[in-house]
């Protein structure tokens, strides 16, 4: 812990005068999350990561968290989740292993050690990569390239990045401009009336209302709203004298048929050419 603070001091001149909570904050600022911090604590053990003591590491981490809470520092949830997990791991490592199929404490410790090694390896790889001579900084291309008609290159220079960025920005602009209420796909009565009007012409006989329901699309809420809308629509159409309804008893299937003399067109709902658009 002290080492860790000392290490960070090199980065920040002001750290010496900082209060303990500020110091902790500075320490936290230097990390890319709890795993990164665990790795830094692990390095403090000054042993090869393959021989690191996970138990000791857990203790160090937990004491850090305890200290942070003492100064009432708000810790990000990530750090607390890790603390809880490490406390659990510690108990698993210290208590006799229970019988069961769960991974043993040793396995869990090994998995954590592997993660730390892998992260360490990637940090090392990143450092090596960026220590390489880089184009435009250490190594240079021809400064005055002469454009030749060589590659079947497009006249327009546009990359996948340009394309994705354009789409992303377009979407973002749209999202920002409009209050976004998640669209709820419900069947409206108007839709149901139009649908029934179109279908009834083809079904002169009694048929259950259920057989008129649209099949296949959606489910749950959509299906229920379709049933409700179609039911309301049959009432509406019956009122207009365009259909007849029949039901044998409460909760029995509802039968519908077109009135033989019912007119095909309808002043109110006749615009059947209009598409019903769903917004998704």
């Amino acid at each position, binding site marked *: 812990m002290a080492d860790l603070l000392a290490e960070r001091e090199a980065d920040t001149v002001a750290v010496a005068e900082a209060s303990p909570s500020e110091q902790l904050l500075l320490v936290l600022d230097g990390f890319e999350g709890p795993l990164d911090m665990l790795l830094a604590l692990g390095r403090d053990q000054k042993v090869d990561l393959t021989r690191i003591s996970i138990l000791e590491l857990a203790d160090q981490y937990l004491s850090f968290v305890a200290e942070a809470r003492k100064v009432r520092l708000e810790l990000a949830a990530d750090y607390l989740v890790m603390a809880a997990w490490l406390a659990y791991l510690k108990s698993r490592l210290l208590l006799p292993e229970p019988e069961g199929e769960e991974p043993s404490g040793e396995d869990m410790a090994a998995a954590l050690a592997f993660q730390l090694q892998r992260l360490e390896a990637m940090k090392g790889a990143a450092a090596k990569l960026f220590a390489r001579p880089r184009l435009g900084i250490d190594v240079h291309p*021809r*400064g005055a390239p002469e454009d030749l008609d060589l590659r079947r290159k497009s006249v327009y220079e546009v990359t996948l990045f340009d394309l994705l960025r354009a*789409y992303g920005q*377009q979407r973002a602009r749209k999202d920002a401009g409009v209050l976004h209420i998640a669209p709820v796909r419900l069947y409206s009565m108007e839709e149901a009336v139009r649908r029934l009007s179109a279908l009834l012409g083809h079904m002169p006989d009694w048929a259950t209302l259920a057989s008129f329901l649209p099949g296949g699309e959606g489910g749950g809420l959509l299906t229920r709203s379709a049933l409700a809308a179609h039911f309301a629509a049959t009432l509406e159409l019956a009122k207009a004298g365009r259909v007849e309804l029949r039901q044998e008893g409460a909760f029995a299937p509802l039968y519908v048929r077109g009135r033989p003399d019912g007119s095909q067109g309808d002043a109110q709902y006749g615009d059947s050419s209009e598409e019903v658009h769903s917004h998704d």
Partner: protein
Amino acid sequence: MIEEAANAHQADACEAEAHGAEARTGRLRLLEALLFASAEPLDEETLAGRIGPEAGLLLEELRAHYARRGVNLVRTGGGWAFRTAVDLAPELRREEEVSRRLSRAAIETLAIIAYHQPVTRGEIESIRGVATSKGTLDLLMEHGWIRPGKRRETPGRPLTWITTDHFLDHFGLETLRDLPSVDDLRAAGLLDSRPVLLGLGTMGDDSAVGTDEEA
């Protein structure tokens, strides 16, 4: 004794000479690299500042070395620069058209077609919130990125637009399914409400909504 001393002297001289030659080669290499990497011809004074007073001599040496190669060191406008050999010009056809940047309207339209295909012009317009000039679609089609798809079976039977194989090829995609989803874009930071990204200012005015920028 005298002979020995003479020999020693000679050896020293040799070593010094070898050393000198090495340093000279180093300077020649640096000169070569400077001229290669520079966007502008470099004048002798500038080069002397980097290489030393020998620069003039070394320039002549480089010029001689490259004289019969595919690249020549030439003096141009008071400076020195590497240029492809003049006699190769017929074989090094220049690009007739300097590569241009695609307008923002065109990129956006292309992106919308890619993501929403098959999509009608009316739909593109309602997504973009501006009218799409015919020129934009023509341009994208001429370029082989989009082509007409089936007609939509709705009133007016509008034409839909879809992307081509050349589109996939150009953007290095194997299939359309490899286009990042909106969620992927959001996760990658590409669907951010950051107002302007680096270098975007040149691509058109964001506030110009309601008018379509010409392609």
